[in-house]
């Protein structure tokens, strides 16, 4: 007989699982640098992401300076301008937003919120960060390579990303960009497998799927999507690298450059667009879903009220995640496609509005008659809701083929995209940092600096991006180095551009204040204590703050869902998830 050993009967295992094998560091290097502790890795991810994000911020300033005051700065020539655009976009979308939400918040919050000691594969988790850092370094190296970074636009569309005579394809830039993306994807896969397996298999006793905080649901779904969407980008990068380096013609049609027939022929630039957007559209929700989840928790905690419609919120996250894989071609309406395809993709795009609207309604209904504390995290959460609705509404314009085609290459798209995917998730990142900073460092961030940061950022972002909608509607094209004399662009539009540029400088400066606050408060912030927000989720119930390696002395046991706020009859207005007893126990997943 074959002796295949399966444990029998009782599916409830011990709270401590035998798989757990934590590496205990012995030196400063293994404790803080080559650390396998998810919390340290999270801080490493976040610091690197913020650092490279500052580069992207400066690039956006330079771009705006050119648009607001064309020709005033001699060093910004057309080629540099395109390099700035490309690097700003790629850094913000991939190296900042994706890395910070999944690598940063994912690493920090998943084990703590689920009552795990660490991620399931700490070593792979560590490698994930170092590969990410390598990817960032390769990206930064392209600034110093011959010819500078690629100027292909963040979508890297061929053929111009491959041709040697364009800002996109010349010299080293595109090669370094593609290599960096490939490294990022390999690194992310190592981390992503960790996040998914930890959520699926690494929870503590009592932590059922429907008792997970929505933050974890958002990060989990986004990670699954990333594991399925990044392969398309990986394949696209490999093929484009071959086109550029080996002279293959995957994406290159027969083409004449500088009056010379090139060796390429028979490839399809549209194929690249499909591969890119099969990654690119899920990517929007890879960033948005963690933001959705975090905002749900911020609102519930700071309004002292249970989240409205928890079960619906979970399903909305999952459905948005699934739908986002069948909408990608709405980025390609202007590339030309069979009208039936356009109809299909427009329909699926607009259907996404339904689960998204459910989420917005539920946030608002959570606030309804809540005990709203206007703390900094709450302010950012409220700002997110408003901004997200704004950006979402213009999405309805662009999701329709006939409306999208005239608007597609104008500033309207820039405005829409930055509202919904730029400003909105970044507001959540700020809110989340203000919310969890006390747990990470043991001290609160400075309130005065935080208030200035919030109001300048929130109002400033609107002053930047609202006028852009108008510019788009009068037909001002995007990605143009300078407008020159054009009949359809009135002089007032140029004034508006100057105004936007000045606001961009101001908002950017506010981020420097935030950065200063982050560093200053490590030493000078007010002592926070273990649970300053009086929150229910497990990360606030750790024995030490900041939590030590391994998180818990004894693993916590979970008795309730994460939203027991203001329960009638309870002694306090919050009941931690690991507090036993039936007082105010809400039925699992009750809405």
């Amino acid at each position, binding site marked *: 007989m*074959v*002796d295949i050993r*399966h*444990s029998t009967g*009782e*599916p*409830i*295992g*011990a*709270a401590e*699982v*035998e*798989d757990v094998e934590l590496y205990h560091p012995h030196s400063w290097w293994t404790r803080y640098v080559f650390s396998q502790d998810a919390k340290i890795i999270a801080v490493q991810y976040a610091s690197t992401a913020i650092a490279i994000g500052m580069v992207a911020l400066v690039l956006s300033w330079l771009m705006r300076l050119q648009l607001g005051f064309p020709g005033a700065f001699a060093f910004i020539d057309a080629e540099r301008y395109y390099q700035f655009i490309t690097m700003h976009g790629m850094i913000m979308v991939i190296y900042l937003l994706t890395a910070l939400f999944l690598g940063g918040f994912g690493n920090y919050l998943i084990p703590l919120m689920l009552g795990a000691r660490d991620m*399931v*594969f700490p070593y792979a988790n560590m490698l994930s960060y170092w590969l990410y850092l390598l990817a960032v370094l390769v990206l930064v190296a392209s600034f110093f390579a011959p010819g500078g970074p690629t100027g292909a636009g963040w979508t890297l569309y061929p053929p111009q990303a491959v041709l040697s005579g364009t800002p996109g394809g010349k010299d080293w830039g595109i090669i370094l960009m593609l290599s960096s993306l490939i490294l990022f994807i390999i690194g992310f*896969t190592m981390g*992503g*497998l*960790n996040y*998914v*397996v930890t959520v*699926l*298999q*690494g*929870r*503590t*006793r009592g*932590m*059922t*799927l*429907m008792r997970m905080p929505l933050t974890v649901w958002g990060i989990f779904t986004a990670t699954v999507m990333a*594991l*399925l*969407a990044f*392969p*398309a980008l*990986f*394949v*696209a990068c490999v*093929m484009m690298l*071959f086109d550029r380096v*080996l002279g*293959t*013609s*995957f994406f290159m049609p027969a083409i004449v450059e500088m009056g010379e027939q090139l*060796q390429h022929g*028979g*490839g*399809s630039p549209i*194929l690249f667009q499909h*591969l890119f957007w*099969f990654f690119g559209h899920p990517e929007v929700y890879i960033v948005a879903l963690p933001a959705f989840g975090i905002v749900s928790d911020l609102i519930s905690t700071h309004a002292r009220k249970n989240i409205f419609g928890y079960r619906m919120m979970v399903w909305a996250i999952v459905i948005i995640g699934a739908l986002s894989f069948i909408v990608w071609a709405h980025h390609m309406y202007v590339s030309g496609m069979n009208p039936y395809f356009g109809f299909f993709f427009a329909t699926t795009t607009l259907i996404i509005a339904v689960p998204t609207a459910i989420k917005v309604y539920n946030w608002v209904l959570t606030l309804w008659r809540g005990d709203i504390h206007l703390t900094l995290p709450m302010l950012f959460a409220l700002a997110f809701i408003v901004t997200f609705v704004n950006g979402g509404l213009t999405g309805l314009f662009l999701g329709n083929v006939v409306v999208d085609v005239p608007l597609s290459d104008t500033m309207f798209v820039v405005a829409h995209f930055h509202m919904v995917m730029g400003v909105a998730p970044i507001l959540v990142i700020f809110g989340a940092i203000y919310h969890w900073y006390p747990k990470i460092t043991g001290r609160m961030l400075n309130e005065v600096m935080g208030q200035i940061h919030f109001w300048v950022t929130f109002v400033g972002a609107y002053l930047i991006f609202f006028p852009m909608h108008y510019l788009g509607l009068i037909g001002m094209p995007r990605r143009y180095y300078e407008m020159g004399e054009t009949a359809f662009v009135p002089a007032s539009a140029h004034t508006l551009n100057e105004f936007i540029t000045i606001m961009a400088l101001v908002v950017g400066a506010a981020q420097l204040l935030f950065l200063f606050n982050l560093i200053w408060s490590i030493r000078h912030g007010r002592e926070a204590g273990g649970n300053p927000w009086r929150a229910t989720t497990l990360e606030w*119930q750790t024995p030490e703050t900041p939590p030590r390696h391994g998180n818990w002395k*004894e693993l*916590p*046991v*979970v008795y309730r869902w994460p939203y027991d706020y203001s329960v009638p009859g309870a002694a306090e207005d919050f009941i*931690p998830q*690991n507090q*036993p007893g039936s007082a105010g126990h809400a039925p699992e997943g009750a809405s």
Partner: protein
Amino acid sequence: MSVETHSPVREPLHRPAGLAGFAADWASDQRTFKNVSWGKAMMWIFLLSDTFIFGCFLIAYMSARMSTAVPWPNPSEVFALHIGGSDVPLILIAIMTFVLITSSGTMAMAVNFGYRQDRRKTALLMVVTALFGATFVGMQAFEWTKLITEGVRPWGNPWGAAQFGSTFFMITGFHGTHVTIGVIFLLIIARKVWRGDFDTGRRGFFTSRKGQYEIVEITGLYWHFVDLVWVFIFAFFYLW
């Protein structure tokens, strides 16, 4: 705050029947997939992700082949070997496929003996599997050499669409890399099995859970996946 310590004995949960019970099992605490270790869950999810990579490669290849304006080289002729005075179409590919599928068989046997904790047979069968894998890669290298001497390059070939060479080298190269990594991994694990690391619980990667030969099965999952992918490459690239 006082945390109630749990007694090891627990009331059996009330379990609804049918679909609701299925959902309740999945959504219950600690583990979604009961009796599935972390390593095995990770491998399954990784393979799902890898499926999307190969899927994208194959779809890209198919779209290139369907939209090409110049003729696509005939695989039966290109991949024929001249044996005994006549061209035998696809003979090398047939042998390669046979070798790889055989290696899946020996891998399955290794997993079986692993669960019997038969150290020597497990290690031996893993080495045999690795040898089959190395044979496969060797024959692939032969095939590449043959095509390269006939003038096939990533950017062109004597018979038609340039995408033939580029997709061929890219897809078989990517698959061959997978096989090579599998061979290396098999040899590493076989060495650990042979040395008895899984019985002694010796410190190191994947070995700390005493008496567990599960890593053999996880390696097997990867190996079978690589084999399965080859079947699709065989069907779509060579038989089309």
